[in-house]
């Protein structure tokens, strides 16, 4: 416990010092899901393929990317540019290129398969490419897009996944120690409702639009004849392309979220930090490359610097002390029995149980009740007397 707390602080410290970070996770995975088919939903596939390109660009190998594509736009007869998928009308980057590995395609993209994938409840015969082989040291980037509504996301016009289903799947993953941290990103109408039910720890969630808001497409390609990308995904990509050019980028998730602008996205993008240990501050300081990039155990010269290490340890001790003090103050302020001043690696669990009635002022309440009853009796007595 002590050790993990220490290493966490080391990260914070390293961030502050802008030095080479040593992430806690040992692998990076990405689950990229498009849930709609049909030609006019071209943009959803383009969204997912853009994200696929981004995570691959930042080093996550195909073996650690689960790509779910329900339709094949590249080979659709309506495609004026056969064999390609573009997410921009400049058609500069062919997202379908020659190195695409689709793990779940066509009618394999179902709610059942998605949940089985997350929770690893798959048959023995399932190939490794269709499994999410993560452990408790894996960071996962989950990206979903399609047509959704209040607390649901439609899969292929046939079924839908609910916010509760998703929350339960993530909880199972947590229980089975299948992730370390998750960045959940969703681009659909009323997207923010989809993560509202999550209750498992170590998740940062973001969505494109609030309840009763639609998410909009960004622009159409008039030769392809359809909208090619959604606004939220477009501006995410814009940020990632501009600021996260390689793994050395120090841009944080918080900076990405700050770039969301209603004027551009035309819907209110939402973020949820409360599941993350350390809350908003800790979540925001996570590097983008912690989720989008692949961890690379490259030895950097400076890592050998003993002085720096010592400095780090010193600093982390100071931080630990400060935190402890803050926690104590916090506890005192809230008038609750003190909690151990440690970094909450186990997050605050929000389990609604039967709530016991407080026993404070039990006698006072009894007395008030008895007085009230007596008063009523007295009134009644007086009333009868007067009447008689």
């Amino acid at each position, binding site marked *: 416990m002590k050790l993990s707390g220490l290493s966490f602080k080391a990260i914070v410290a390293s961030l502050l010092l802008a030095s080479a970070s040593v992430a806690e996770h040992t692998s990076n995975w990405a689950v990229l899901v498009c849930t709609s088919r049909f030609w006019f939903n071209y943009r959803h596939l383009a969204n997912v393929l853009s994200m696929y390109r981004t995570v691959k660009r930042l080093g996550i190998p195909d073996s650690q990317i689960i790509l779910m594509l329900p339709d094949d736009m590249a080979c659709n*007869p309506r495609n004026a540019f056969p064999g390609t998928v573009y997410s921009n009308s400049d058609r500069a980057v062919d997202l379908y290129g020659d190195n695409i590995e689709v793990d779940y395609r066509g009618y394999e993209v179902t709610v059942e398969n998605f949940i089985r994938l997350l929770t690893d409840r798959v048959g023995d015969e399932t190939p490794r490419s269709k499994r999410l082989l993560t452990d408790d040291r894996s960071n996962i980037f989950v990206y979903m897009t399609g047509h959704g509504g209040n607390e649901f996301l439609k899969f292929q016009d046939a079924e839908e996944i609910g916010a509760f289903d998703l929350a339960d799947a993530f909880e199972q993953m947590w229980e089975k120690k299948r992730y370390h941290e998750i960045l959940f990103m969703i681009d659909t109408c009323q997207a923010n409702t989809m993560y509202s039910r999550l209750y498992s720890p170590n998740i940062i969630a973001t969505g494109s639009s609030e309840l009763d808001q639609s998410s909009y497409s960004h622009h159409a390609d008039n030769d392809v004849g359809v909208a090619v990308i959604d606004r939220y995904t477009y501006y995410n990509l814009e940020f990632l392309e501009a600021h996260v050019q390689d793994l050395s980028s120090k841009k944080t998730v918080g900076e990405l979220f700050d770039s969301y602008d209603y004027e551009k996205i035309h819907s209110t993008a939402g973020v949820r930090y409360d599941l993350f240990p350390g809350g908003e501050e800790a979540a925001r300081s996570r590097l983008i490359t912690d989720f989008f990039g692949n961890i690379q155990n490259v030895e950097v010269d400076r890592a050998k610097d003993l002085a720096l290490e010592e400095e780090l340890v010193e600093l982390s001790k100071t931080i630990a002390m400060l935190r402890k003090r803050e926690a104590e103050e916090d506890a005192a302020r809230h008038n609750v029995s003190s909690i151990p001043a440690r970094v909450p690696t186990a997050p605050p669990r929000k389990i609604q149980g039967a709530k016991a009635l407080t026993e404070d002022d039990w006698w006072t309440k009894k007395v008030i009740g008895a007085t009230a009853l007596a008063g009523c009796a007295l009134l009644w007595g007086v009333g009868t007397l007067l009447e008689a």
Partner: protein
Amino acid sequence: MPRLLSTALSLRRDPRLLKIPPYISAFCIAIGVVWLLLLPLDDYSRRTYVSENALLPGQVHTYFGGSEQSIFRAFRHEVDLLASKNNFEVNDKLESILTGFGVKVGRQNYTYHSAGEIYSGENVYGILQAPRGDATEAIVLVAAWKSIHEQLNRNGVALVLTLARYFKRWSLWSKDIILLLPPDSTTGTQAWVDAYHDAHDSKYIAPLPLKSGALQGALAIDYPFEHRYHELHIIYDGTNGQLPNLDLINSIVNIAGGQMGIETTVQQMAGHTDSYQDRLQTMLRGMLYQGLGYPTGPHSSFIPYHVDAITLQPAGEGWHDEMAMGRVVEGSFRSLNNLLEHLHQSFFFYLLMQKNRFVSIGTYLPSAMLVAANFTIMAIFLWVKSGQPIAKREATDKPKGDISEGKGVSTTTPSSPPTVERNLLSPLALVATCHSISAIPLFVFNHLGIKTLPLAFLLFSVLSTALPAIFSFVIASVQKPTAQFFQLTKSFSLLILGVSLATLSTLNFSLAFLVGLLASPLTFIQPTKNLVTRLFLVILLIITSPPVVISSAAWTSGVTMSEVLKAASLGWNVWGMYTPIIIWCVWWPAWLIGTTNTLSSTFKI
């Protein structure tokens, strides 16, 4: 509660209650008409919107133009050279042109017989196979050699040939494109569509040598004139008042207006100002076409097979040219090409007020239903009334022989008035006779030759006017007609009329409404002793009799009666138009019975 129930029951026997139904009937008709007149208002009609996500109208660049114009001129020259040739020579040339593009070509002979005339011809069509499609679906581009107004459709045919050559070069078609070039705008497409769905009479119509997948939509071009045009007239009425899916019209309005800047109109309402009056006129004109059920263009034949189709007809003087028309077609085909399933999202039952304003069936249906309901209410009322003994105050009239208090059948409570036995045989016999002889005009008008048709109609009109008098004379001589007899015959006749029209209103709203309105006097006529009233009633009935209405309608629209009869016969024999059944087998017998009833008092009660 029991008290309430008994109050309700005693109210049921209240004689005052029996006076209400005729007023309810009149009220229904009035509400029905007012309802219809309210529809053009903003509060009752809605703006159109594209409902099908897949269509994405106007989202593609259209590239038809430039050098295609020279090709178009060349094809128009070819068409001009063929102007004086016969159908087969024309088709030989068209076939060689189409095969020149690498399009598979088929030809089909057909012969229709109607009103003693023969309509025969040969369709030529080509199937442009989608290079990457799976040949399970197809869209049709039609240009009839003869336009709707029987002119040479020279620009239309040339445009289809140019578009075919142009479409052939695109690789993005998901559906085959069928290019249909029938010799005329009326019979040719019908023969072709029938044969495409294997629903043709193989004695007269040849099967198709080549077929593609299920038809998803059709667009016909009717462009005979030379000058530049101002707007596109969208003709959408199908046979028997069936309509194409509203999304098809919306898409084309959207593509023409939004992308090409071409005005669109419906129901020949050029210069629509979107005022109440214009909207009402558009709606009524639409209702008239729908009510007639007569095909309005080459697209009409597709609609009964659930293939959404329209005809595009350039109109007015303006600055748009053939290329703009071609681009509208290209844009529309790109939209249809996007479809994943049959058009089904939007409305199939609607009345258009303007190119972008409509009312849907839920809003307008009550209007025709109320008119139809008035007959049913009256029928039920008369049935109840026929079972009641003649009230004391009416007993001053001649006592009726076969009605006596003692013959009461059911007496639920001792206090309820006894139900009089109804004598059903003779009323049923009269109603059955009238309905069965209605097969005669239906048969006669659909099988006689054009030479005898006008004479037959004249004879029939005279006979139709005389029949009620003959019937009432026969009735009076066979059996002493009673009040109950009139009530029952009228009740049965109105019941049939009401049920038929209510059913019809869901299929062809306009026809049901128009017939309902014209037949509405039948609700209120009854035998009367007053000579002046009777004379007035008889004149009213003769004015609203089917033959008189038809001939006066023909006269007002400046068409000769023989043309009307020829067209009706053609509609019946070629397109399966059911308007004659409604007129001769629903409306006419009801009129006949009503008029017989009115006249009966003449021949002695």
